[in-house]
C-alpha cells in the first residue's frame, strides 16, 4: 500500500487507532480463522462499550433486527460490532459536529440535535437509565426479559414513555439508526457480516457498473454482492 501524502493510510490508521486490535482481527481474519470467518460474536471484546453496556447493545440489536423470519438478524450480521466501533470513532465523539454551547437540549425537536453530549456519551448515560426503568417496570435488566417484554420496553423507549433527561432524548433514534447502518454498511465497518444483509435484499454492493443493465427492465440482476475489499456474498 502506498501512502498518499497528507492522507492516513489504512496501515497508519491501524497503528494509531484505539480500535486497532479490533480492526486488525476484522481486517485479517485469515490470521486465525478461515477466509471470511471471524471469531464468534460472543468472543468479541468491545473497544468502547463496558461489559454491562455490551450485554444491552447485543440484546437490543437482537430485537431491533431479530433472527426470526426471512433474512439475517443483527447478531448474525455482527451489527453490535459495528456500533461499538462507531462509538470509538469520529461518529461516537461527534468530531464533525458543532458542539459549542449554550445548549438547550429540551428545545423544539424540529430545530434538531441540541444535546451537549456526544453520541457515545449518550449511549453511556442512557443505557443505565433505561436499564433502571426496565428493572422498575419489568422487574429485570433488559437482556433478561423475554422477547415480547423486550419489544414492549423498546417501544416505550421509542415513544418517549421512558423518562430520560432531555440530553438523552435522541438515544433510541441513534440506536435504531446505528443498527440499520451496521446491517447495511460495507462489511469493513464490522457489521453486514459476509454481506448477508446485502445478499438478502438484493443489493450488489460495490459493483458500481451497470451500463448494459439499465435497459434490461424488470429482470433480475445476476451477480452476487461485492464489498469494497472484494469479498463476495
Amino acid at each position, binding site marked *: 500500500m502506498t501512502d*498518499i501524502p497528507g492522507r492516513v493510510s489504512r496501515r497508519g490508521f491501524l497503528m494509531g487507532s484505539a480500535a486497532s486490535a479490533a480492526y486488525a482481527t476484522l481486517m485479517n481474519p485469515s490470521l486465525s480463522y478461515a477466509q471470511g470467518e471471524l471469531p464468534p460474536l460472543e468472543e468479541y471484546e468491545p473497544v468502547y462499550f463496558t461489559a454491562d453496556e455490551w450485554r444491552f447493545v447485543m440484546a437490543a440489536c437482537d*430485537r*431491533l*433486527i*431479530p433472527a*426470526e*423470519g*426471512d*433474512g439475517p*438478524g443483527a447478531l448474525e450480521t455482527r451489527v453490535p460490532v459495528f456500533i461499538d466501533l462507531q462509538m470509538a470513532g*469520529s461518529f461516537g465523539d*461527534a*468530531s*464533525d*459536529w*458543532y*458542539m*459549542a454551547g*449554550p445548549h*438547550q437540549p429540551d*428545545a*423544539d*425537536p*424540529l*430545530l*434538531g*440535535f*441540541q444535546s451537549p453530549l456526544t453520541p457515545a456519551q449518550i449511549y453511556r448515560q442512557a443505557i443505565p437509565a433505561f436499564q433502571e426503568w426496565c428493572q422498575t417496570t419489568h422487574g429485570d435488566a433488559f437482556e433478561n426479559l423475554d422477547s415480547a417484554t423486550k*419489544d414492549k420496553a*423498546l417501544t416505550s423507549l*421509542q415513544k418517549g414513555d421512558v423518562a430520560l433527561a432531555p440530553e438523552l432524548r435522541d438515544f433510541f433514534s441513534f440506536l*435504531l439508526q446505528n*443498527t*440499520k*447502518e451496521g446491517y*447495511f*454498511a*460495507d462489511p469493513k*465497518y464490522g457489521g453486514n457480516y459476509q454481506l448477508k444483509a446485502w445478499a*438478502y*435484499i*438484493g*443489493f450488489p*454492493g*460495490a*459493483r*458500481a*457498473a*451497470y*451500463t448494459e*443493465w*439499465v*435497459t*434490461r*427492465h*424488470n*429482470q*433480475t*440482476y445476476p451477480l452476487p454482492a461485492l464489498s*469494497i475489499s472484494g469479498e463476495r456474498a
Partner: protein
Amino acid sequence: MATRTDPKKDVVILGLGWTGSILGMELAQEGLEILALERGEDRNTVPDFQYPGVIDELKYGIRYGFMQKPTKMTLTVRHNTEQTALPYRHLGSFLPGDGVGGAGIHWNGHTWRTQDVELRLKSYVEETFGADIIPEGMQIQDWGVTQEELEPYYDRLEYMMGISGKAGNINGEIQEGGNPFEAPRARDYPNPPLDNTYDAELFADAARKFGYHPFPRPAANASRAYTNEYGMQLGPCNYCGFCERFGCLNYSKASPQTCILDALKQKPNFSYKTHAEVLKIEKAADGKTATGVTYFDEKTGDEVFQPADLVLVCTYSLNNVHLLLLSGIGQPYDPATGEGVVGRNYSYQMTGGTALFFKDKNFNPFIGTGSVGMSIDDFSISQIDFAEEGFIGGSYITGGHTGGRPIQQLSTPPGTPSWGQGWKEAAGQWYACKMSIGSHGSNMSYRDCYLDLDPTYTDRHGRPLMRMTFNWKDNDIKMTQFMKGKIEEVAKSMNPDKMASGFKHDGSQYDVRPYQSTHNVGGAIMGTDPKTSVINRYLQSWDCHNVFVMGASAYPQNTQYNPTGPLGALAYWAADAIRKDYLKNPRPLM
C-alpha cells in the same frame, strides 16, 4: 489583525466550486493574475473519488465525508423572529459542500434553465393576475435579467458540462419528446438523453395517458464520451448508483474537476490555495471598493491579508451572505422595517413525493444515476393559473431514481413497523419493488424569511454564526398540496399494490432533521434597485464595485428548478460583463 500580507493579485476568488472555477477560467484568459482561496481540502477524481473506496455509503452518504463540517462552520436556525435560534449542529436538511469542487462534486446533475416568467416573476404576476393576488408578507421580485439575455450563457454552460437531454423548443419550434414549456433555446443539448430506468418509463407512459408531456430530465451525467471547449473529457456514465453525495468515480458527472480544473491549472497566471478560509472582505477607507481579503491559513495558523483589485465571492450561497454580513458590505436587512438588503429574501425548495410499491415489478434500484428520470413541466410556473388555484408557484414532476443505497434509500410500505421482524421482512420484500414520483417545487420569498448574524453563537474564529429565520408558508403548502393531487392521480393509474405520499401539509413547520434539499437561495439577491437588492444585474455589489457575488444567493426567490443551471449561466454572464466592460473601466456597471 493580519499576521502576514501577501503580494497583490489582480483577482482573488473566494471558493473554488462551480462559479469560482468558471470565473477563474474566463478571467485567466484575460491574462490576469488570479488566486483562488478554498477553505477545504484539495480533491481530484484520483484518489478522492477512486473506485472502490468512494463506493462507501456510510462514509460519504451517511457521515457526509465530502460535506461542510459543522464543527468548522454552521449556522443557527429558528422559525420566526420570536424564537431563539439554535445551531444546526449536525447536517440534515441541507448539505453544503466544501473543498475544491464544492457542492459541484456531490450534486445530482439536474441542469435546468428557469422559465422566462420566473425571472420576471413579480411583473408577470402583476400583469397577468393583478398585484392583489400576492399575499401579505410575500416579497417576490424580478431578477433584472431576462431569459433571452441569458440564453447564450446557458448554452455555454450546457456545452461546458456536456449535458445529456432533449431540447423541447429550438428557436420557437417545439421539439417532439422534449420539454414543450421551456424557453426557446438556440440548439439542442450537446449529448443525447441517458438510457431510462424502468420506473422512468412507467411514469412517462402513465403521464402521456393524462395528456402530459414527459421528457428526459436534463442531466450533467454524460450519456457518451464528450470533450468540452476547454479540452476536458467526460466518459459515459455507468449508472453506478453512487452519484449525489459522492464524487464521480467514472469522469461522467460534470464537476469543476471533470470540466474545468485540470485545464485551468495549466494556466501560469492562475493559482489556488486550499485550507485558506476567508474571514473578511476588507474595504477601502472610503468604503466604495474592497482592497482584498483576510484569510486564515490553516497550514501555518497565520491570518493573511491578500490584496486584490477584484474580489469574486464564489462560496456556497449561505457562506456568501455570511461573508458580506461579516464584512459590512451592504446594509443588513431588517425585517421590522423592511430596510437594508443583505440577508433579504432567503428561500428554499418545496419538495414532496409519492412512493409506489409493486409486488410483481423489479426496478433494480441500485442501477441509477444522479439525474436519470422522466419529467413533466405541465404544472410549472408558466402553466398554472395562480388566481384560480390560490397560490403562486409551480413544480416539475419526475419519475425515476438515482440509486438503491440501502441505508438511505431503502423504504418500506406504509404500515410497516420501523424495526423488528416486520421491518426486516418488508425491507427484503420491497427493496427492489419500489419507485417514486417526486415534485420539485418553487418557494417564494417573504418579508420574515431572512438571514442575519446570530447574537449568541460563534465559529472557531470567534465570528458570529449566521442566523436563518425561516418557515413554510401557506402559499407554498397550497402549491405542494396541488402537486400531491396531480401526482397521486397518475400514481393510482399505475395500479401499485401500495402507495405512500410525503408532502408538506397545513401546519407543517420547517424541520432541520430530514434531508430536503441543498437549494438554499437568496440573501444576496440581484436586481435593478439598490434598495431591494445586494448586487446589480451583473452580480456586482451596489456598495463596492470591485466585489462580484456569484451563486444562488442571487435568486430573489427560488425557482421550481434545481439552482445550478441559472447560477452557472449567471457566472458566464457576469464574467462577460467583467471581461468586456468592467476591466476596461472599473466602476459601477449600473
